[in-house]
C-alpha cells in the first residue's frame, strides 16, 4: 500500500469512527430520553396517588368523626 493509499485508509477509518461515535452518542441520548420519560410518568402517577390518598384520608377521618 502506497503512502496515498494509507492516507486514504486513515481518512476512511476516521470518517467511520466519527459516524460511529455520533451514532453511539445519539443512541445514548435516546435511551436516556426514554428512561427520563418513564421516570417522569412514574412521578406523575405517584403524585396523583399521594393527592388521592390525602383526599381519602380526609374522608375516612370525617366518617370517623375526627374531622
Amino acid at each position: 500500500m502506497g503512502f496515498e493509499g494509507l492516507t486514504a485508509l486513515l481518512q476512511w477509518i476516521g470518517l467511520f469512527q466519527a459516524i460511529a461515535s455520533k451514532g453511539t452518542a445519539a443512541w445514548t441520548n435516546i435511551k436516556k430520553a426514554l428512561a427520563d420519560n418513564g421516570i417522569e410518568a412514574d412521578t406523575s402517577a405517584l403524585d396523583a396517588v399521594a393527592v388521592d390518598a390525602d383526599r381519602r384520608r380526609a374522608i375516612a377521618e370525617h366518617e370517623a368523626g375526627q374531622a
Partner: protein
Amino acid sequence: MKQRILAGMAALIVMIALVSAAGCAAKQRHIATVSVVAGHQALALIQDTEMLLVCGKSTAPAAGQCVPQDVHQNEISPKLAAAFQYDASIARTVRDWPVGTPPPATIGELMGKINAIIQDVLRHMPESALKTKLVFQLGS
C-alpha cells in the same frame, strides 16, 4: 486489488460501544411505582365498598350483612384513615427515591402496616355478596 480489499475491510470496521442501559436503574423505581398504584387502588376499592355496606344506607344489605354504624365510625374509618396516611407517605417516598440508589427501607415497613390494616378491616365487615365481590377483586 488485494490492498483495496484490505482497505475496504478496515474502513468497514465500525466500533460501536454499547453503553449500559440508562433505564436499568429506573426499573426498580418503576416496579415500586406500579406496586404503589395497585396498592392504592385496592385501598380505594375497600373504602368505596365499605361505604356502601354501612347499615342504614340505601345501598346496604340486610341486617347481619351490613356494617354497623359504630363499627364503621369507631373501627373501620380510623383504620382506613391511617392506611391512607401510610399510602400517601409511600407514594411520596417512592417519588423522592433517587434513581440508582437502594430502595428506602420504610417502603416495606409501611406496606406491611397497610396490609395488616386491610386484613383487619375485612375482618370487621360481615359476610355479604358485596364483600365477596370485594375479596374476589382484591385477589384478582
